């Protein structure tokens, strides 16, 4: 390097920089994701295995009147995978903290929001990949979008938005936990009941009354119901999903609520974490 007086690089993090920095970090996280051997297992083999297991193991035992179980299952299982996948956000941030990457980023003149935005966006890209893969496998087994292409894409979008919102909760979890093991444990404890005490795999009507009260009023059920109404289309009323528009609005309401709470909490934790 010569002793030339380098012009100081641009400083003001205008909106352009906020976006560019977030995308630079997103690209880095996407590269990390796809080079991680665990990614192959948890983002390809595991989701495929889940679809196959649920379709063939539970599929025979669970009869949903009026619809094929596979058509009932796919919207539920992609929401389940997306919610579990949000754990990656926590693990990724905890890893970056532990290895000093967050310090490196904080010492650079980049937008302060880029680390969290880049993480949650990269994990949403991962979700898009996994959801597409699971739907593809479902298709081979006989799953079909019964409500048309627009409804299908809307359904996928709702699921991805929910996954994105959930990533923000896990951003807080990861920063708070500080190490990978704690982040992993802190995630699963409350995600399991949320996912399994929902309409993801079975109709909530079969659960005991107290559990129904929980299952019918929690976000995972709201999102699963919306996605299911959209993918089942005209068959939706057969499983008690009568008003698709209302279900979608309810799901988006949960997404908005989670984002409104989780983003400030996550950002606050990021600023605090040193």
């Amino acid at each position, binding site marked *: 390097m010569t002793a030339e007086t380098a012009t100081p690089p641009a400083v003001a993090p205008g909106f352009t920089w906020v976006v560019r920095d977030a995308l630079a970090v997103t690209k880095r996280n996407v590269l990390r994701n796809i080079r991680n051997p665990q990614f192959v297992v948890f983002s390809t083999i595991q989701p495929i295995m889940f679809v196959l297991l649920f379709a063939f193991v539970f599929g025979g035992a669970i009869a949903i009147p009026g619809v094929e179980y596979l058509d009932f299952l796919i919207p539920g299982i992609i929401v389940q995978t997306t919610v579990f996948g949000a754990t990656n956000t926590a693990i990724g941030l905890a890893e970056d903290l532990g290895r000093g990457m967050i310090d490196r980023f904080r010492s650079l003149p980049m937008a302060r929001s880029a680390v969290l935005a880049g993480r949650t966006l990269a994990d949403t890209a991962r979700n898009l990949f996994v959801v597409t893969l699971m739907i593809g496998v479902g298709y081979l087994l006989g799953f079909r979008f019964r409500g048309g292409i627009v409804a299908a894409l809307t359904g996928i979008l709702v699921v991805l938005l929910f996954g994105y919102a959930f990533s923000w909760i896990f951003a807080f979890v990861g920063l708070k936990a500080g*190490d990978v093991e704690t982040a992993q444990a802190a995630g699963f404890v409350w995600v399991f009941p949320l996912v399994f005490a929902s309409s993801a795999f079975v109709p909530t009507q079969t659960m005991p009354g107290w559990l129904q009260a929980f299952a019918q009023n929690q976000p995972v059920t709201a999102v699963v119901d919306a996605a299911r109404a959209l993918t089942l289309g005209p068959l939706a009323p057969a499983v008690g999903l009568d008003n698709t528009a209302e279900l979608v609005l309810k799901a988006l309401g949960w997404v908005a609520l989670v984002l409104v709470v989780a983003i400030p909490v996550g950002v606050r934790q990021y600023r605090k974490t040193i």
Partner: protein
Amino acid sequence: MRGSTQTVIEVENVRRSFGEVVALDGVDLRAAQGRVLGLLGPNGAGKTTLVRILTTLLRPDSGSARVLGHDVVADAGPLRSRIGLAGPYAAVDEMLTGFENLELVGRLYHLSRDEARRRAGETLERFDLSEAGNRPAKTYSGGMRRRLDLAASLVGKPQVLFLDEPTTGLDIRSRLALWEMIEELVRDGTTLLLTTQYLEEADQLADHIVVIDRGSVIASGTSEALKTQLGADVLDVHIDDVGQMDDAIAAVVKNRDEAHVDPQMGHISVPVRDGSAALVNVVRRLDDAGIAIKDIALRRPTLDDVFLALTGESAEDVATDVVANVGRRRSRARS
């Protein structure tokens, strides 16, 4: 280049605690343009805390710190584009290649894509990493990682560079290679603040050394001045019969306080100015007193000797003492 006396780092009475543990207890220091300031101290002395404050990663509880005229709290944003940080806590991404790491950092310094790539290539070459540039950093040796870390801190062409223990844990060869690269940077006019536990490293690289202990500056000056204060070399004597310790001490030094004595081991260590002459004298005097020498040697002073001379306590005692508290606190605060 050198000779300019513009102050680039100014620290005034900076304090920082983690809970009840005081990491910095009123630190003052200054560094001029194109100079190398060595911050020397044992583990837990407060070196890293100070570097983290100067690189905007941590706020001081009180006092003020300015780098290149920017207040580290109020002007943190503009300051970040003019500084670089390398060290155990400013990592590289092991899943990315060397080139991708540097390109990412360049982009985050807000260079254009082309410029970021050009500098990534340039910087890799400069640090002898061109060949490894397309390999993931996880395949790098320890020395290569440190070089990549150092390269990353330079992509933005910082005017002030902070190196936190740049060679800790490296083997001798990698350490020497890294020293050469750091010396070259300084020749090009970069102002450097370097923390180290090794007196030898501060001596080799820094033209001004600040010794820090328990959050305070306990000595400051050129390495020559510090060594004069200390004596140029240290003479280590081991005698055979520990029963003769008192006689031996009398034969080695005039004033007992000058020596560091371990009676159980029969060990006397003393700073000396005229190395080989002192060695000869001591051998003769011990011989005259009829004391058998097990081992006698001249060596360069270590950080431990500096601490003995400055505080009367060994660096290790200080370190274990402070690390037990601060280390735990820090890792908590960090996580």
